[in-house]
Protein backbone atom coordinates (compact mmCIF):
# COMPACT_ATOMS: atom_id res chain seq x y z
CA UNK A 1 0.00 0.00 0.00
CA UNK A 2 2.90 2.38 0.66
CA UNK A 3 4.03 2.03 -2.91
CA UNK A 4 0.51 2.34 -4.33
CA UNK A 5 -0.15 5.46 -2.27
CA UNK A 6 3.10 6.99 -3.43
CA UNK A 7 2.50 6.00 -7.05
CA UNK A 8 -1.01 7.46 -7.15
CA UNK A 9 -0.32 10.61 -5.16
CA UNK A 10 3.28 11.43 -5.89
CA UNK A 11 2.26 14.44 -7.99
CA UNK A 12 0.40 15.96 -5.05
CA UNK A 13 3.15 15.03 -2.57
CA UNK A 14 5.79 16.73 -4.73
CA UNK A 15 3.50 19.70 -5.34
CA UNK A 16 2.91 19.97 -1.59
CA UNK A 17 6.61 19.76 -0.84
CA UNK A 18 7.27 22.47 -3.43
CA UNK A 19 4.60 24.72 -1.98
CA UNK A 20 5.98 24.08 1.47
CA UNK A 21 9.52 24.92 0.45
CA UNK A 22 8.30 28.05 -1.33
CA UNK A 23 6.38 29.13 1.78
CA UNK A 24 9.44 28.51 3.94
CA UNK A 25 11.66 30.54 1.65
CA UNK A 26 9.15 33.40 1.60
CA UNK A 27 8.91 33.38 5.39
CA UNK A 28 12.68 33.29 5.77
CA UNK A 29 13.21 36.00 3.21
CA UNK A 30 10.59 38.34 4.64
CA UNK A 31 11.78 37.77 8.21
CA UNK A 32 15.41 38.39 7.43
CA UNK A 33 14.88 41.21 4.97
CA UNK A 34 12.14 43.31 6.53
CA UNK A 35 13.96 44.36 9.75
CA UNK A 36 17.17 44.97 7.83
CA UNK A 37 15.23 47.17 5.46
CA UNK A 38 13.58 49.06 8.30
CA UNK A 39 16.89 49.45 10.11
CA UNK A 40 18.53 50.78 6.98
CA UNK A 41 15.79 53.31 6.35
CA UNK A 42 15.33 54.08 10.05
CA UNK A 43 12.51 56.48 10.73
CA UNK A 44 13.52 58.56 7.80
CA UNK A 45 11.79 58.64 4.47
CA UNK A 46 11.35 55.17 2.99
CA UNK A 47 13.20 54.98 -0.29
CA UNK A 48 10.93 55.28 -3.27
CA UNK A 49 7.70 54.69 -1.34
CA UNK A 50 5.93 56.52 1.39
CA UNK A 51 6.22 54.93 4.81
CA UNK A 52 2.50 54.42 5.41
CA UNK A 53 2.27 52.37 2.28
CA UNK A 54 5.27 50.31 3.31
CA UNK A 55 3.94 49.70 6.80
CA UNK A 56 0.61 48.63 5.33
CA UNK A 57 2.40 46.38 2.91
CA UNK A 58 4.25 44.63 5.72
CA UNK A 59 1.06 44.34 7.76
CA UNK A 60 -0.59 42.76 4.76
CA UNK A 61 2.30 40.39 4.29
CA UNK A 62 2.12 39.33 7.90
CA UNK A 63 -1.64 38.84 7.89
CA UNK A 64 -1.61 37.33 4.42
CA UNK A 65 1.21 34.96 5.27
CA UNK A 66 -0.51 33.77 8.40
CA UNK A 67 -3.84 33.49 6.61
CA UNK A 68 -2.22 31.55 3.79
CA UNK A 69 -0.69 29.06 6.16
CA UNK A 70 -3.76 28.60 8.32
CA UNK A 71 -6.54 28.57 5.69
CA UNK A 72 -5.22 28.01 2.20
CA UNK A 73 -3.08 25.03 3.21
CA UNK A 74 -6.07 23.12 4.65
CA UNK A 75 -8.25 24.13 1.70
CA UNK A 76 -5.71 22.67 -0.71
CA UNK A 77 -5.30 19.49 1.33
CA UNK A 78 -9.07 19.02 1.66
CA UNK A 79 -10.08 19.88 -1.89
CA UNK A 80 -7.13 18.62 -3.93
CA UNK A 81 -6.00 15.64 -1.86
CA UNK A 82 -9.04 14.53 0.15
CA UNK A 83 -12.02 15.18 -2.11
CA UNK A 84 -10.80 13.22 -5.16
CA UNK A 85 -9.43 10.29 -3.13
CA UNK A 86 -12.47 8.02 -3.57
CA UNK A 87 -14.42 10.07 -6.12
CA UNK A 88 -11.80 9.98 -8.85
CA UNK A 89 -11.56 6.18 -8.62
CA UNK A 90 -15.33 5.88 -8.94
CA UNK A 91 -15.41 8.35 -11.83
CA UNK A 92 -12.77 6.40 -13.71
CA UNK A 93 -14.25 3.03 -12.80
CA UNK A 94 -10.98 1.94 -11.19
CA UNK A 95 -12.74 1.41 -7.86
CA UNK A 96 -14.01 -1.85 -9.34
CA UNK A 97 -10.38 -2.90 -9.62
CA UNK A 98 -9.12 -1.40 -6.37
CA UNK A 99 -11.96 -2.73 -4.24
CA UNK A 100 -11.99 -6.28 -5.61
CA UNK A 101 -8.43 -7.10 -4.59
CA UNK A 102 -7.86 -8.88 -1.27
CA UNK A 103 -8.08 -5.69 0.81
CA UNK A 104 -11.48 -4.38 1.92
CA UNK A 105 -12.40 -0.92 0.71
CA UNK A 106 -12.27 0.65 4.14
CA UNK A 107 -8.79 -0.75 4.80
CA UNK A 108 -7.73 0.43 1.36
CA UNK A 109 -9.02 3.93 2.11
CA UNK A 110 -7.73 4.35 5.66
CA UNK A 111 -4.30 2.98 4.87
CA UNK A 112 -4.07 5.64 2.19
CA UNK A 113 -5.47 8.36 4.46
CA UNK A 114 -3.00 7.37 7.17
CA UNK A 115 -0.06 7.37 4.80
CA UNK A 116 -1.04 10.73 3.34
CA UNK A 117 -2.22 12.22 6.62
CA UNK A 118 1.08 11.62 8.39
CA UNK A 119 3.21 13.89 6.17
CA UNK A 120 0.36 16.42 6.16
CA UNK A 121 0.39 16.48 9.99
CA UNK A 122 4.18 16.77 10.04
CA UNK A 123 3.90 19.66 7.57
CA UNK A 124 1.51 21.31 10.02
CA UNK A 125 3.94 20.91 12.91
CA UNK A 126 6.83 22.26 10.90
CA UNK A 127 4.68 25.15 9.71
CA UNK A 128 3.96 26.13 13.31
CA UNK A 129 7.67 26.00 14.07
CA UNK A 130 8.48 28.15 11.05
CA UNK A 131 5.78 30.73 11.62
CA UNK A 132 6.51 31.34 15.32
CA UNK A 133 10.09 32.66 14.96
CA UNK A 134 9.15 34.47 11.76
CA UNK A 135 6.39 36.30 13.54
CA UNK A 136 8.50 37.19 16.54
CA UNK A 137 11.01 38.69 14.14
CA UNK A 138 8.48 40.96 12.46
CA UNK A 139 6.00 41.40 15.30
CA UNK A 140 7.15 44.92 16.01
CA UNK A 141 5.18 45.83 12.94
CA UNK A 142 2.25 43.57 13.43
CA UNK A 143 0.31 44.34 16.57
CA UNK A 144 -0.90 41.49 18.74
CA UNK A 145 0.02 37.92 17.90
CA UNK A 146 -2.44 36.15 20.22
CA UNK A 147 -5.06 38.64 19.15
CA UNK A 148 -4.53 37.99 15.47
CA UNK A 149 -6.56 34.87 14.60
CA UNK A 150 -4.56 34.22 11.47
CA UNK A 151 -1.31 34.08 13.37
CA UNK A 152 -2.91 32.22 16.25
CA UNK A 153 -4.18 29.52 13.87
CA UNK A 154 -0.77 29.21 12.24
CA UNK A 155 1.08 28.41 15.44
CA UNK A 156 1.02 25.83 18.23
CA UNK A 157 -0.95 22.68 17.44
CA UNK A 158 -3.61 24.31 15.29
CA UNK A 159 -1.96 23.90 11.87
CA UNK A 160 -1.97 20.13 12.47
CA UNK A 161 -5.59 20.16 13.67
CA UNK A 162 -6.75 22.27 10.71
CA UNK A 163 -4.87 20.23 8.11
CA UNK A 164 -6.01 16.82 9.39
CA UNK A 165 -9.57 18.09 9.76
CA UNK A 166 -9.50 19.37 6.18
CA UNK A 167 -8.19 16.05 4.86
CA UNK A 168 -10.91 14.05 6.64
CA UNK A 169 -13.67 16.43 5.52
CA UNK A 170 -12.46 15.95 1.95
CA UNK A 171 -12.38 12.17 2.38
CA UNK A 172 -15.89 12.17 3.84
CA UNK A 173 -17.41 14.06 0.93
CA UNK A 174 -15.39 11.97 -1.50
CA UNK A 175 -16.83 8.76 -0.05
CA UNK A 176 -20.34 10.17 0.34
CA UNK A 177 -20.77 11.99 -2.98
CA UNK A 178 -18.33 9.95 -5.07
CA UNK A 179 -17.92 12.67 -7.66
CA UNK A 180 -14.79 14.79 -7.46
CA UNK A 181 -16.00 18.27 -8.35
CA UNK A 182 -19.11 18.27 -6.10
CA UNK A 183 -16.99 16.71 -3.33
CA UNK A 184 -14.46 19.52 -3.73
CA UNK A 185 -17.22 22.12 -3.57
CA UNK A 186 -18.77 20.62 -0.46
CA UNK A 187 -15.33 20.34 1.17
CA UNK A 188 -14.46 23.97 0.50
CA UNK A 189 -17.89 25.08 1.74
CA UNK A 190 -17.65 23.14 5.00
CA UNK A 191 -14.05 24.22 5.62
CA UNK A 192 -14.85 27.87 4.95
CA UNK A 193 -17.87 27.67 7.24
CA UNK A 194 -15.89 25.96 10.02
CA UNK A 195 -12.98 28.37 9.76
CA UNK A 196 -15.36 31.31 9.70
CA UNK A 197 -17.29 30.17 12.76
CA UNK A 198 -14.13 29.30 14.69
CA UNK A 199 -12.62 32.67 13.85
CA UNK A 200 -15.73 34.61 14.77
CA UNK A 201 -16.39 32.79 18.03
CA UNK A 202 -12.85 32.35 19.25
CA UNK A 203 -12.84 35.34 21.59
CA UNK A 204 -15.90 34.00 23.41
CA UNK A 205 -14.45 30.55 24.07
CA UNK A 206 -13.70 31.71 27.61
CA UNK A 207 -15.06 34.51 29.77
CA UNK A 208 -12.70 37.46 29.35
CA UNK A 209 -10.94 39.18 32.23
CA UNK A 210 -12.11 42.74 32.94
CA UNK A 211 -9.64 45.36 34.14
CA UNK A 212 -9.58 49.15 34.18
CA UNK A 213 -8.29 50.49 30.92
CA UNK A 214 -5.53 52.28 32.78
CA UNK A 215 -4.23 48.98 34.12
CA UNK A 216 -4.54 47.12 30.80
CA UNK A 217 -2.83 49.75 28.70
CA UNK A 218 -0.08 50.47 31.23
CA UNK A 219 1.02 46.89 31.82
CA UNK A 220 4.21 46.86 29.90
CA UNK A 221 4.24 44.30 27.13
CA UNK A 222 0.93 42.65 27.96
CA UNK A 223 -1.15 44.22 25.18
CA UNK A 224 1.12 42.50 22.68
CA UNK A 225 0.27 38.98 23.80
CA UNK A 226 -3.34 39.26 24.82
CA UNK A 227 -6.66 39.08 23.05
CA UNK A 228 -8.27 42.43 23.39
CA UNK A 229 -12.04 41.88 23.39
CA UNK A 230 -13.71 45.16 24.25
CA UNK A 231 -13.05 48.66 25.53
CA UNK A 232 -15.98 50.52 27.10
CA UNK A 233 -17.02 52.96 29.79
CA UNK A 234 -19.19 52.26 32.83
CA UNK A 235 -20.67 54.70 35.32
CA UNK A 236 -20.55 54.47 39.12
CA UNK A 237 -23.65 52.22 39.16
CA UNK A 238 -22.00 49.79 36.75
CA UNK A 239 -24.17 50.78 33.76
CA UNK A 240 -22.64 50.99 30.35
CA UNK A 241 -22.12 54.55 29.23
CA UNK A 242 -22.91 54.72 25.54
CA UNK A 243 -22.59 58.44 25.13
CA UNK A 244 -19.20 59.74 26.20
CA UNK A 245 -19.32 62.79 23.99
CA UNK A 246 -19.04 64.95 27.08
CA UNK A 247 -15.35 64.04 27.15
CA UNK A 248 -14.81 64.17 23.39
CA UNK A 249 -13.26 67.56 23.56
CA UNK A 250 -10.78 66.52 26.23
CA UNK A 251 -8.20 64.88 24.06
CA UNK A 252 -7.49 61.87 21.94
CA UNK A 253 -6.92 58.75 23.99
CA UNK A 254 -3.26 57.99 23.75
CA UNK A 255 -3.37 54.26 24.31
CA UNK A 256 0.08 53.35 23.13
CA UNK A 257 1.89 55.67 25.52
CA UNK A 258 1.31 53.87 28.76
CA UNK A 259 3.39 56.29 30.81
CA UNK A 260 1.17 59.25 30.01
CA UNK A 261 -2.12 57.39 30.46
CA UNK A 262 -2.82 58.49 34.04
CA UNK A 263 -2.30 62.05 33.06
CA UNK A 264 -4.59 61.71 30.04
CA UNK A 265 -7.18 64.51 29.93
CA UNK A 266 -9.80 61.94 28.86
CA UNK A 267 -9.23 59.91 31.99
CA UNK A 268 -9.50 63.02 34.13
CA UNK A 269 -12.75 63.89 32.42
CA UNK A 270 -14.11 60.36 33.00
CA UNK A 271 -13.20 60.59 36.71
CA UNK A 272 -15.12 63.85 36.95
CA UNK A 273 -18.30 62.11 35.68
CA UNK A 274 -17.72 59.07 37.93
CA UNK A 275 -17.07 56.94 34.89
CA UNK A 276 -14.50 54.26 34.45
CA UNK A 277 -12.85 53.00 31.32
CA UNK A 278 -12.77 49.17 31.30
CA UNK A 279 -11.18 46.60 29.04
CA UNK A 280 -12.22 42.95 28.51
CA UNK A 281 -9.33 40.77 27.44
CA UNK A 282 -7.78 37.33 27.51
CA UNK A 283 -4.35 37.32 29.14
CA UNK A 284 -1.33 35.94 27.34
CA UNK A 285 -1.13 32.81 29.48
CA UNK A 286 -4.42 31.65 27.96
CA UNK A 287 -2.72 31.04 24.65
CA UNK A 288 -2.39 27.27 25.13
CA UNK A 289 -5.84 26.90 26.63
CA UNK A 290 -7.27 28.58 23.54
CA UNK A 291 -5.10 26.42 21.34
CA UNK A 292 -6.27 23.22 23.01
CA UNK A 293 -9.95 24.19 23.08
CA UNK A 294 -9.89 25.01 19.37
CA UNK A 295 -7.87 21.90 18.56
CA UNK A 296 -10.29 19.85 20.65
CA UNK A 297 -13.29 21.18 18.72
CA UNK A 298 -11.51 20.38 15.44
CA UNK A 299 -10.53 16.91 16.65
CA UNK A 300 -14.12 16.17 17.63
CA UNK A 301 -15.39 17.31 14.22
CA UNK A 302 -12.63 15.29 12.55
CA UNK A 303 -13.82 12.20 14.42
CA UNK A 304 -17.43 12.76 13.31
CA UNK A 305 -16.44 13.17 9.68
CA UNK A 306 -14.20 10.09 9.90
CA UNK A 307 -17.07 7.95 11.23
CA UNK A 308 -19.26 9.35 8.47
CA UNK A 309 -16.63 8.43 5.90
CA UNK A 310 -16.37 4.84 7.20
CA UNK A 311 -20.15 4.47 6.93
CA UNK A 312 -20.23 6.09 3.49
CA UNK A 313 -17.53 3.68 2.28
CA UNK A 314 -19.57 0.69 3.45
CA UNK A 315 -22.33 1.71 1.10
CA UNK A 316 -22.23 -0.69 -1.83
CA UNK A 317 -24.46 0.10 -4.75
Amino acid at each position, binding site marked *: *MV*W*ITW*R*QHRAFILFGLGLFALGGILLFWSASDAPRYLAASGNGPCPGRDCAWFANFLQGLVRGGAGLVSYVGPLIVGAVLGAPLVAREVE*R*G*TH*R*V*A*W*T*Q*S*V*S*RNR*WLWTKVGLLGLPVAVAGLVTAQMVAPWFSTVKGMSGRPFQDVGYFNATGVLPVAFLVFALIVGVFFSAAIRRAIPAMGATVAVLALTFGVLTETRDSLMKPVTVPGREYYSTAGSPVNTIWVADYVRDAAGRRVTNTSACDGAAVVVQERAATWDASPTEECYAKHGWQNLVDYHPADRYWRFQLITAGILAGLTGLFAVGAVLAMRR*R*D
Partner: protein
Amino acid sequence: MTSPANLAAAPQAAQQPAALRVTGLGKRFRRTWALRDCDLVVPAGSVTALVGPNGAGKSTLLQLAACLMRPTTGSVEIFGTPTDAIDAALPRIAFLPQDKAVYRRFTVAETLRFGRELNPGWDDEFAHARVAELGLPLDQRLGRLSGGQRTQVALTVALGKRPDLLLLDEPLADLDPVARVDVAASLMTSVLETGLTVLYSSHLVAELARACDHLVVLNDGRVQLSGDLDEVISQHWRLTGSVDTVDEVAARHEVVSRTSAGRQATLVVRAPRPEIGAGWEAELLGLEDLVIALLRKKTEH
Protein backbone atom coordinates in the same frame (compact mmCIF):
# COMPACT_ATOMS: atom_id res chain seq x y z
CA MET B 1 -44.90 -17.49 -14.52
CA THR B 2 -43.06 -20.78 -14.53
CA SER B 3 -40.34 -21.33 -12.02
CA PRO B 4 -36.80 -21.29 -13.41
CA ALA B 5 -35.58 -24.70 -14.41
CA ASN B 6 -32.68 -25.89 -12.37
CA LEU B 7 -31.65 -28.98 -14.23
CA ALA B 8 -28.94 -30.03 -11.82
CA ALA B 9 -30.53 -32.66 -9.59
CA ALA B 10 -31.18 -31.23 -6.15
CA PRO B 11 -29.35 -33.82 -3.98
CA GLN B 12 -26.33 -33.66 -6.23
CA ALA B 13 -26.23 -29.86 -6.02
CA ALA B 14 -26.23 -30.02 -2.24
CA GLN B 15 -23.20 -32.30 -2.19
CA GLN B 16 -21.26 -30.51 -4.87
CA PRO B 17 -19.34 -27.54 -3.42
CA ALA B 18 -20.80 -24.36 -4.85
CA ALA B 19 -18.36 -21.70 -5.99
CA LEU B 20 -21.22 -19.25 -6.05
CA ARG B 21 -24.59 -19.74 -4.41
CA VAL B 22 -27.27 -17.15 -4.87
CA THR B 23 -30.43 -17.45 -2.77
CA GLY B 24 -33.55 -15.34 -3.12
CA LEU B 25 -31.40 -12.60 -4.54
CA GLY B 26 -32.92 -9.25 -5.41
CA LYS B 27 -31.26 -5.94 -6.20
CA ARG B 28 -33.19 -2.72 -6.50
CA PHE B 29 -31.90 0.57 -7.84
CA ARG B 30 -34.23 3.25 -6.56
CA ARG B 31 -37.54 2.03 -7.95
CA THR B 32 -36.50 -0.55 -10.48
CA TRP B 33 -35.47 -4.08 -9.70
CA ALA B 34 -32.36 -5.12 -11.63
CA LEU B 35 -32.59 -8.63 -10.20
CA ARG B 36 -35.47 -10.40 -8.52
CA ASP B 37 -35.98 -13.76 -6.81
CA CYS B 38 -32.79 -15.23 -8.21
CA ASP B 39 -31.67 -18.67 -7.10
CA LEU B 40 -28.53 -19.95 -8.68
CA VAL B 41 -25.65 -22.32 -8.11
CA VAL B 42 -22.36 -22.15 -9.96
CA PRO B 43 -20.63 -25.48 -9.28
CA ALA B 44 -16.96 -25.39 -8.30
CA GLY B 45 -14.69 -26.14 -11.23
CA SER B 46 -17.26 -25.18 -13.84
CA VAL B 47 -16.98 -22.64 -16.60
CA THR B 48 -20.36 -20.99 -16.51
CA ALA B 49 -21.71 -18.61 -19.09
CA LEU B 50 -24.17 -15.98 -18.01
CA VAL B 51 -26.34 -15.13 -20.96
CA GLY B 52 -28.99 -12.53 -21.49
CA PRO B 53 -29.81 -9.39 -23.42
CA ASN B 54 -28.51 -5.99 -22.38
CA GLY B 55 -30.21 -4.87 -19.20
CA ALA B 56 -30.99 -8.41 -18.10
CA GLY B 57 -29.04 -7.95 -14.87
CA LYS B 58 -25.80 -9.77 -15.81
CA SER B 59 -23.47 -7.00 -14.68
CA THR B 60 -25.47 -6.50 -11.51
CA LEU B 61 -25.22 -10.20 -10.66
CA LEU B 62 -21.46 -10.21 -11.28
CA GLN B 63 -20.90 -7.08 -9.21
CA LEU B 64 -22.93 -8.57 -6.38
CA ALA B 65 -20.69 -11.65 -6.53
CA ALA B 66 -17.60 -9.39 -6.62
CA CYS B 67 -18.60 -7.74 -3.30
CA LEU B 68 -19.04 -4.42 -5.11
CA MET B 69 -22.74 -4.31 -4.37
CA ARG B 70 -24.91 -5.41 -1.50
CA PRO B 71 -28.10 -7.37 -2.19
CA THR B 72 -31.44 -5.73 -1.47
CA THR B 73 -32.90 -9.15 -0.65
CA GLY B 74 -31.42 -12.62 -0.31
CA SER B 75 -27.77 -13.60 -0.13
CA VAL B 76 -24.70 -14.29 -2.22
CA GLU B 77 -22.15 -16.84 -1.02
CA ILE B 78 -18.66 -17.45 -2.35
CA PHE B 79 -17.62 -21.01 -1.43
CA GLY B 80 -20.00 -20.81 1.52
CA THR B 81 -18.80 -17.38 2.67
CA PRO B 82 -21.42 -14.64 2.42
CA THR B 83 -20.20 -11.55 0.59
CA ASP B 84 -21.12 -9.52 3.68
CA ALA B 85 -17.97 -11.03 5.23
CA ILE B 86 -15.98 -9.01 2.76
CA ASP B 87 -12.50 -9.70 4.16
CA ALA B 88 -13.05 -13.45 3.85
CA ALA B 89 -14.80 -13.35 0.49
CA LEU B 90 -12.54 -10.93 -1.39
CA PRO B 91 -9.36 -13.05 -1.54
CA ARG B 92 -11.32 -15.87 -3.19
CA ILE B 93 -12.66 -13.91 -6.13
CA ALA B 94 -11.20 -11.89 -8.96
CA PHE B 95 -13.27 -9.56 -11.07
CA LEU B 96 -12.77 -8.15 -14.53
CA PRO B 97 -15.21 -5.27 -14.99
CA GLN B 98 -16.98 -4.69 -18.25
CA ASP B 99 -15.17 -1.48 -19.13
CA LYS B 100 -11.82 -3.15 -18.28
CA ALA B 101 -11.07 -0.17 -16.06
CA VAL B 102 -7.35 0.04 -15.35
CA TYR B 103 -5.01 2.72 -14.08
CA ARG B 104 -4.15 4.07 -17.49
CA ARG B 105 -1.08 5.91 -16.27
CA PHE B 106 0.39 2.79 -14.69
CA THR B 107 2.86 0.81 -16.75
CA VAL B 108 2.38 -2.93 -17.20
CA ALA B 109 5.03 -3.56 -14.54
CA GLU B 110 3.37 -1.11 -12.16
CA THR B 111 0.01 -2.76 -12.72
CA LEU B 112 1.48 -6.11 -11.74
CA ARG B 113 3.04 -4.51 -8.69
CA PHE B 114 -0.39 -3.10 -7.80
CA GLY B 115 -1.70 -6.68 -7.83
CA ARG B 116 1.20 -7.87 -5.69
CA GLU B 117 0.77 -5.15 -3.07
CA LEU B 118 -2.93 -5.78 -2.57
CA ASN B 119 -3.02 -9.58 -2.65
CA PRO B 120 -1.27 -11.84 -0.14
CA GLY B 121 -1.79 -14.81 -2.47
CA TRP B 122 -0.26 -13.04 -5.47
CA ASP B 123 1.73 -15.23 -7.87
CA ASP B 124 4.35 -12.85 -9.19
CA GLU B 125 6.20 -15.48 -11.17
CA PHE B 126 3.06 -16.53 -12.99
CA ALA B 127 2.01 -12.96 -13.71
CA HIS B 128 5.38 -11.97 -15.16
CA ALA B 129 5.60 -15.19 -17.16
CA ARG B 130 2.13 -14.61 -18.60
CA VAL B 131 2.93 -11.03 -19.55
CA ALA B 132 6.21 -12.11 -21.14
CA GLU B 133 4.50 -14.90 -23.03
CA LEU B 134 1.97 -12.45 -24.42
CA GLY B 135 4.79 -10.14 -25.45
CA LEU B 136 3.45 -7.18 -23.47
CA PRO B 137 6.07 -4.47 -22.88
CA LEU B 138 6.60 -4.01 -19.13
CA ASP B 139 7.44 -0.32 -19.30
CA GLN B 140 4.49 0.67 -21.48
CA ARG B 141 1.67 2.67 -19.94
CA LEU B 142 -1.69 0.92 -20.08
CA GLY B 143 -3.33 3.89 -21.73
CA ARG B 144 -1.10 3.36 -24.76
CA LEU B 145 -1.82 -0.35 -25.17
CA SER B 146 -4.45 -1.72 -27.54
CA GLY B 147 -7.80 -2.82 -26.15
CA GLY B 148 -6.84 -6.47 -26.43
CA GLN B 149 -3.53 -5.94 -24.67
CA ARG B 150 -5.21 -3.97 -21.91
CA THR B 151 -7.70 -6.78 -21.39
CA GLN B 152 -4.80 -9.23 -21.22
CA VAL B 153 -3.06 -7.16 -18.54
CA ALA B 154 -6.28 -6.86 -16.53
CA LEU B 155 -6.82 -10.58 -16.93
CA THR B 156 -3.25 -11.25 -15.77
CA VAL B 157 -3.87 -9.25 -12.60
CA ALA B 158 -7.11 -11.18 -12.05
CA LEU B 159 -5.38 -14.54 -12.56
CA GLY B 160 -2.25 -13.54 -10.64
CA LYS B 161 -4.38 -13.06 -7.57
CA ARG B 162 -4.91 -16.82 -7.69
CA PRO B 163 -8.65 -16.62 -7.09
CA ASP B 164 -10.95 -19.60 -6.70
CA LEU B 165 -13.71 -17.88 -8.62
CA LEU B 166 -13.03 -15.66 -11.61
CA LEU B 167 -15.82 -13.25 -12.52
CA LEU B 168 -15.63 -11.75 -16.00
CA ASP B 169 -18.11 -9.17 -17.22
CA GLU B 170 -18.31 -9.31 -21.02
CA PRO B 171 -14.60 -10.11 -21.28
CA LEU B 172 -14.60 -10.31 -25.05
CA ALA B 173 -16.85 -7.36 -25.86
CA ASP B 174 -15.15 -4.38 -27.52
CA LEU B 175 -12.29 -6.55 -28.81
CA ASP B 176 -11.60 -7.09 -32.47
CA PRO B 177 -12.16 -10.65 -33.77
CA VAL B 178 -8.47 -11.62 -33.65
CA ALA B 179 -7.98 -10.29 -30.12
CA ARG B 180 -11.21 -12.03 -29.13
CA VAL B 181 -9.88 -15.42 -30.19
CA ASP B 182 -6.51 -14.77 -28.54
CA VAL B 183 -7.96 -13.61 -25.23
CA ALA B 184 -10.44 -16.48 -25.12
CA ALA B 185 -7.75 -19.04 -25.91
CA SER B 186 -5.24 -17.79 -23.35
CA LEU B 187 -8.00 -17.52 -20.75
CA MET B 188 -9.07 -21.11 -21.33
CA THR B 189 -5.46 -22.28 -21.11
CA SER B 190 -5.09 -20.60 -17.73
CA VAL B 191 -8.38 -22.04 -16.60
CA LEU B 192 -7.34 -25.55 -17.56
CA GLU B 193 -3.97 -25.14 -15.82
CA THR B 194 -5.40 -23.89 -12.56
CA GLY B 195 -8.83 -25.51 -12.45
CA LEU B 196 -10.47 -22.38 -11.15
CA THR B 197 -14.18 -21.68 -11.48
CA VAL B 198 -15.17 -19.10 -14.06
CA LEU B 199 -18.40 -17.18 -14.35
CA TYR B 200 -18.54 -14.91 -17.35
CA SER B 201 -21.26 -12.89 -18.96
CA SER B 202 -21.86 -12.49 -22.63
CA HIS B 203 -24.58 -11.44 -24.98
CA LEU B 204 -22.89 -13.18 -27.88
CA VAL B 205 -24.50 -16.59 -27.98
CA ALA B 206 -22.41 -18.04 -30.77
CA GLU B 207 -19.21 -17.78 -28.75
CA LEU B 208 -20.56 -19.78 -25.90
CA ALA B 209 -20.70 -23.34 -27.07
CA ARG B 210 -16.95 -23.86 -27.23
CA ALA B 211 -16.06 -22.22 -23.96
CA CYS B 212 -18.55 -23.14 -21.26
CA ASP B 213 -19.86 -26.27 -19.63
CA HIS B 214 -22.63 -24.57 -17.64
CA LEU B 215 -25.21 -22.10 -18.70
CA VAL B 216 -27.28 -19.50 -16.89
CA VAL B 217 -29.88 -17.61 -18.86
CA LEU B 218 -30.92 -14.33 -17.31
CA ASN B 219 -33.72 -12.18 -18.61
CA ASP B 220 -35.43 -9.16 -17.16
CA GLY B 221 -33.76 -9.68 -13.81
CA ARG B 222 -34.79 -13.29 -13.40
CA VAL B 223 -33.05 -16.61 -13.92
CA GLN B 224 -34.74 -18.32 -16.86
CA LEU B 225 -32.65 -21.43 -16.76
CA SER B 226 -29.47 -22.71 -15.22
CA GLY B 227 -27.70 -26.01 -15.52
CA ASP B 228 -25.15 -28.24 -17.16
CA LEU B 229 -24.81 -27.31 -20.81
CA ASP B 230 -25.14 -30.84 -22.22
CA GLU B 231 -28.19 -31.53 -20.09
CA VAL B 232 -29.74 -28.26 -21.09
CA ILE B 233 -29.21 -28.97 -24.77
CA SER B 234 -30.39 -32.58 -24.55
CA GLN B 235 -33.65 -31.53 -22.90
CA HIS B 236 -34.86 -28.85 -25.20
CA TRP B 237 -36.72 -29.87 -28.32
CA ARG B 238 -38.37 -28.23 -31.22
CA LEU B 239 -41.62 -29.96 -32.15
CA THR B 240 -43.36 -29.24 -35.43
CA GLY B 241 -46.76 -30.49 -36.55
CA SER B 242 -50.31 -29.57 -37.40
CA VAL B 243 -52.14 -26.75 -35.65
CA ASP B 244 -55.09 -29.15 -35.21
CA THR B 245 -53.26 -31.31 -32.70
CA VAL B 246 -50.97 -28.69 -31.15
CA ASP B 247 -53.03 -28.27 -27.98
CA GLU B 248 -52.96 -31.98 -27.36
CA VAL B 249 -49.14 -32.15 -27.78
CA ALA B 250 -48.56 -28.99 -25.78
CA ALA B 251 -50.56 -30.35 -22.87
CA ARG B 252 -48.11 -33.23 -22.48
CA HIS B 253 -45.01 -30.99 -22.23
CA GLU B 254 -43.47 -28.07 -20.45
CA VAL B 255 -43.74 -25.51 -23.22
CA VAL B 256 -41.06 -22.90 -23.55
CA SER B 257 -42.45 -21.19 -26.61
CA ARG B 258 -45.22 -21.68 -29.10
CA THR B 259 -45.58 -20.24 -32.60
CA SER B 260 -47.56 -21.05 -35.66
CA ALA B 261 -47.33 -20.28 -39.35
CA GLY B 262 -50.32 -21.22 -41.51
CA ARG B 263 -51.25 -24.82 -40.80
CA GLN B 264 -47.92 -25.59 -39.11
CA ALA B 265 -47.34 -25.15 -35.42
CA THR B 266 -43.96 -25.06 -33.68
CA LEU B 267 -43.40 -25.77 -30.02
CA VAL B 268 -40.20 -25.48 -28.02
CA VAL B 269 -40.51 -27.82 -25.07
CA ARG B 270 -38.43 -28.93 -22.13
CA ALA B 271 -38.45 -32.70 -21.76
CA PRO B 272 -35.99 -35.60 -21.51
CA ARG B 273 -37.79 -37.19 -24.48
CA PRO B 274 -40.76 -35.65 -26.25
CA GLU B 275 -43.99 -37.62 -26.55
CA ILE B 276 -45.41 -36.88 -29.95
CA GLY B 277 -47.98 -38.54 -32.16
CA ALA B 278 -48.30 -39.05 -35.87
CA GLY B 279 -47.65 -36.05 -38.07
CA TRP B 280 -45.26 -34.47 -35.59
CA GLU B 281 -41.49 -34.17 -35.77
CA ALA B 282 -39.00 -33.57 -32.98
CA GLU B 283 -35.45 -32.27 -33.11
CA LEU B 284 -32.99 -31.02 -30.51
CA LEU B 285 -32.53 -27.27 -30.42
CA GLY B 286 -29.07 -25.87 -30.85
CA LEU B 287 -27.69 -23.67 -28.10
CA GLU B 288 -28.26 -20.52 -30.04
CA ASP B 289 -31.88 -21.33 -30.90
CA LEU B 290 -32.49 -22.37 -27.34
CA VAL B 291 -31.22 -19.11 -25.88
CA ILE B 292 -33.22 -17.12 -28.38
CA ALA B 293 -36.34 -19.15 -27.60
CA LEU B 294 -35.84 -18.58 -23.88
CA LEU B 295 -35.31 -14.88 -24.27
CA ARG B 296 -38.25 -14.53 -26.62
CA LYS B 297 -40.51 -16.39 -24.24
CA LYS B 298 -39.96 -13.70 -21.67
CA THR B 299 -41.02 -10.91 -23.94
CA GLU B 300 -44.30 -12.68 -24.72
CA HIS B 301 -45.41 -12.45 -21.13
